[in-house]
């Protein structure tokens, strides 16, 4: 069992600004741990986490792969979160590279077919679309969970770029809610040439969470 990253440097005040790891975070950690051997043997070089928040997930991935073995890029639309990601990296001896950005936008040009591990625990809660827009625009904590129509508005944007970003043998791990329409996501990605597997699913409170792993079809 790989220990959860040390987040003791983050305080109650921090968690007013950055998403505090919860069941959706932990299911992603568990899925990555489950795949640890495969991840290691695939010898990734470039990892990109969208919406890194506290940095917990990328720090964990760095434990699995070895901090000096890869480049760990982390984007977040919230600069407070990027700061926390940097600190979490230091706290866990992982050289995480945070960038304040929306999705993978500033990396699209240079990282075409170059991302070996792509991670996204998105704002997946279905909300009114206007709330989603103002949450993202305001870069508030609400933006960490409010997902707009079907909880999919931001995820849909990233899905459009997965084919461009992922390396030939790259892997994309997505956290999703049953209400997001799991099969529909899988079907759409299949049309882009991606096979998918539900690595883990579990109920946490009212949420039925899934981690879906996507890889290009051989």
């Amino acid at each position, binding site marked *: 069992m790989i220990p959860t990253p040390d987040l003791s440097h983050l305080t109650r005040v921090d968690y007013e600004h950055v998403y505090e790891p919860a069941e959706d975070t932990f299911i992603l950690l568990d899925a990555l741990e489950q795949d640890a051997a495969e991840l290691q043997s695939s010898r990734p070089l470039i990892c990109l986490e969208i919406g890194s928040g506290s940095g917990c997930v990328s720090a964990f991935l760095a434990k699995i792969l070895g901090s000096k073995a890869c480049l760990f890029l982390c984007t977040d639309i919230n600069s407070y979160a990027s700061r926390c990601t940097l600190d979490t990296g230091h706290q866990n001896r992982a050289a995480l590279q945070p960038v304040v950005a929306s999705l993978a936008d500033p990396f*699209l040009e240079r990282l075409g077919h170059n991302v070996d591990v792509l991670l996204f625990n998105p704002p997946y809660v279905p909300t009114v679309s206007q709330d989603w827009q103002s949450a993202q625009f305001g870069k508030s904590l609400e933006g960490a969970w409010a997902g707009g129509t079907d909880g999919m508005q931001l995820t849909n944007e990233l899905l459009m770029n997965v084919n461009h970003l992922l390396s030939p043998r790259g892997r994309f791990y997505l956290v999703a809610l049953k209400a997001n329409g799991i099969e529909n996501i899988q079907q759409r990605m299949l049309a882009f040439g991606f096979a998918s597997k539900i690595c883990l699913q579990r109920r946490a409170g009212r949420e039925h969470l899934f981690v879906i792993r996507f890889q290009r079809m051989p």
Partner: protein
Amino acid sequence: MVRLITHNLLACHVKGCNSNNFPLAFDGPQIEIREAEFNSDFLMGFFPKIEWSALVNASRQLGDQSLPEQQPDAENIDDALLKALHHVLLEIHVENGKMICPNCSHIYPISNGIPNMLLAEHEIA
């Protein structure tokens, strides 16, 4: 800690800014040198992904002269080059300053080691 490895991957993404939008030019960079663990496998793996002249120019902007102007062939990478590459990619950190797009002049600030690549609403494609 904006390392040059990350800078080598960042391009301007303002709506309509599609050419000459990489690399971003440093303005007023404040740098710190921090030791990083050496990993030749990683460097060799990353080598073909480097935009070499962008890396060399950026390193020169930051006062480093160790890399050759031309990218060597992968078979000709000796220990000395690997060590220089390690230092330039991973150990030079831009803590504060700006990155400016050579095409549209958009300014991306760096503060406390973190670059802000967000755009204003009217700049988003």
